[in-house]
């Protein structure tokens, strides 16, 4: 690996981060799901290090966006932290296991994850094509904690294995199983992915799997992108963002599958 990055690569990494950050702000997903495969596929980063960068990016997205959401009191802090007791457990164990899994195995799991996310997003994008904006969150009480906690362990494990946030599991678990309104579920999920990713990130950092040279420009981009994305959010139709996410994840799933099949994952 080169001792330094060229200016061109740094700018590209900034752009990748900004795109992912904007996505996170607009769609509530993106972050690691976009960054990790992009870095592994096109920047020549070994998959374990790509996951490390993804995790740090997730912490950035979570910290930046949830600071605003907590201020607006749409995050259910208690619910989030109760679920974090489960997600961090799953994440820490998965992060340790990931150290023993080969890049090919991780790539295979990632392809399945991308396909699953893509499919779920198709359903969500289709469902929002006529949607009105939710304004207020009605009063609610979270139900069915056992199901939520179990889903959270699984979401945490995904985070530790793949460098993603886990929101693709957490949001439906809160919304469908626990009867939390969608806007509160999304905000609470965003809140929890930071701590969840941190549980894994510490393992990766101690193991030397966080490549600061790549992580720094990506995360700087994520912060900038989140700010910009939050600013333009009122002007963007969510359905367009969601379909763009469908396209990106679908495309990357295929690219990764091709590289895996032709023996180019390391």
């Amino acid at each position: 690996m080169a001792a330094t990055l060229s200016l061109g690569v740094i700018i590209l990494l900034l752009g990748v981060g900004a795109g992912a950050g904007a996505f996170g702000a607009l769609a509530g997903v993106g972050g690691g799901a976009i960054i990790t495969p992009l870095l592994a596929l096109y920047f020549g980063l070994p998959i374990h290090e790509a996951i490390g960068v993804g995790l740090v990016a997730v912490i950035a997205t979570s910290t930046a966006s949830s600071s605003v959401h907590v201020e607006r009191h749409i995050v259910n802090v208690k619910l989030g932290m109760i679920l974090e007791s489960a997600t961090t457990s799953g994440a820490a164990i998965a992060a340790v296991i990931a150290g023993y899994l080969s890049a090919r195995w991780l790539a295979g799991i990632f392809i399945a994850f991308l396909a699953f996310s893509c499919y779920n997003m198709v359903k969500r994008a289709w469902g929002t094509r006529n949607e009105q904006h939710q304004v207020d969150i009605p009063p609610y009480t979270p139900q069915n904690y056992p199901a939520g906690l179990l889903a959270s362990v699984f979401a945490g494990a995904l985070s530790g294995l793949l460098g993603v946030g886990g929101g693709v599991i957490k949001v439906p678990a809160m919304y469908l199983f626990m009867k939390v309104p969608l806007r509160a579920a999304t905000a609470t999920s965003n809140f929890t992915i930071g701590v969840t990713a941190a549980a894994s990130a510490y393992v990766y950092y101690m193991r030397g799997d966080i490549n600061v040279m790549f992580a720094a420009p990506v995360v700087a981009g994520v912060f900038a992108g989140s700010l910009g994305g939050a600013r333009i959010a009122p002007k963007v139709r969510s359905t367009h963002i969601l379909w763009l996410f469908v396209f990106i994840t679908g495309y990357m799933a295929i690219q990764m599958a091709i590289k895996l099949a032709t023996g180019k994952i390391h």
Partner: protein
Amino acid sequence: MTRALSNEEVRKSEHLIASTLKAGAYLSFALLVIGVGAMMTQPQSGLGISRIGIIALLAAPVLRILAAIVMYVKERDTKMILVSLWILAVIGLSAFAGIVTH
């Protein structure tokens, strides 16, 4: 036992959490912008500053948990204090596991 909080008190408590998150984000962002900028001309210094920025970012979730504990102590919510301590324990153990499996 949880005593009933007024809406105003809940709002103030969550404000501490929000402020902690914002401080962590701004600090990390500033360090990374400086670090990445420096990377373009003085790679070694740039990398060093960037590393500190990443460490600041990694610390932010833990600081948020500590802020939450402050909130739960004020509310005398023993259950949530224990939940918070459990999360810190898991994170601490994971860092240890990372060192050990290096």
